[in-house]
Every structure is written in structure tokens, then in C-alpha cells.
């Protein structure tokens, strides 16, 4: 297993560097990923409703 402490330190460095970004940069990134996030959320909602329909259908069959 990779050295967990080193990895956590690396991740902390990454998170600090993200935190240090200027607000302008954070907003720019948020704008750039906004469409993806909306699609990601929509796909998740669709998946949930398909699953719920499947459960309802199997309940009504039994």
C-alpha cells in the first residue's frame, strides 16, 4: 500500500493550493464546470427515478 501519510500530505497541499486561488479564478472554474455538474446531477436524478420505477414495478408484480 502506498505511504498513506505522504498521500494525505499531498492531498492537503492540493487542497491548500485550491483554497488559495483567487475568487475570480474560482468563479471562472465554477463557470467552466457548471454545465457538466448540471448534466451529472440530471443523469443521477434520471437513474434514481428509473430505479424507483423498477422497484415499484417489481412490487406490483409480486
Amino acid at each position: 500500500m502506498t505511504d498513506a501519510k505522504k498521500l494525505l500530505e499531498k492531498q492537503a497541499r492540493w487542497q491548500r493550493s485550491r483554497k488559495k486561488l483567487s475568487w475570480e479564478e474560482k468563479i471562472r472554474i465554477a463557470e467552466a464546470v457548471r454545465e457538466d455538474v448540471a448534466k451529472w446531477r440530471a443523469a443521477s436524478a434520471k437513474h434514481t427515478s428509473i430505479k424507483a420505477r423498477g422497484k415499484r414495478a417489481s412490487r406490483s408484480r409480486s
Partner: protein
Amino acid sequence: MRELAELLNQLRDAGVIVNYALFGALAQMRYTEPVATVDADVLVGVPEPERLDALGEIYKFCAARGYRASGEGIQVGAWPVQFIPVFSALTREAMEKAATAEFEGLAMRVVRPEYLATIALSTGRAKDDQRILALLESGKVKRDAIAALAARHNLSAAWKRFEKRFLRD
């Protein structure tokens, strides 16, 4: 994100990584209300985890395809991406048992909510407590499921503390 899905699947197909799963805030958003995030975290299993530079081959593969480094990560389309090798039995299991989601017709592996919550429990920062609460509130994960996973990964004491602090009925 389509580009990220393609890249991750290519990395796996080429054997550069054994497997992967999205985690962190991007995975959380699959189950809860949107949260603020400006990056994508990806758990990866690598063929030689004991290598000091476990991520070297990933960076090489990405560089050869024109993806540039972005701090400690890599820029893939609009997303700054951080690759994190599995670092415990819990994160390995989370990656192996990830769900497969679909994004614009492409498969993308995502850590399941009970694992997201238990990984958050293991790290224990304030934002991780918020993550567990958001996942519970979403109804996508039950307290029993977290308790069972926590017990298997020696986190029962942490879970009891969390319950006492935040979930007193």
C-alpha cells in the same frame, strides 16, 4: 467531464491503472444537493502501488495525450483532476465496489454513498462531518450501512462519536 470519463477508461484499458472511481465532492453530488467544488478527485488502483512514484505512469500517459499539469493534478478539459492512489483497505474496497454511472453515454465509476460517508468518517475534518450529514439527509445512505462498514474498518468508535455529536434523536 466527458473527456475525463474517456481518459479514465483509456487509462484502465491500457493497464496504467487497475481501476478507478470518482470520489470527493463530485461523487457526493451524485447523491446530494450540489456542493461547492472546483476539482475532480479520482481514487485509482495502480499495478505497482509500492513504487515511490506510484502516479508517474498516469502523468506520463496524460502528458503524451496533451494534458498539462495543474499544480499537484492534471487539467482535463474544464476540470482540474487529482489522482489519489488507494491508501487504505477502506479506499481500496470503495474503489472496487464503486457504482457505474453514465455521463453522456460513457460509463464512469463512482464511489457508493456508504463508502463516501465512511471515508469521510475516517478523515474526520469539519467538511467531512458535513458530507456525512448531507449523505444521510439525502436518504441515499442509511445509518446502519455506515455503522456496518465502520465496524469492518475499525471505525466504530469514530462512528459512535459522530452519532453522539450529530444524530442524537
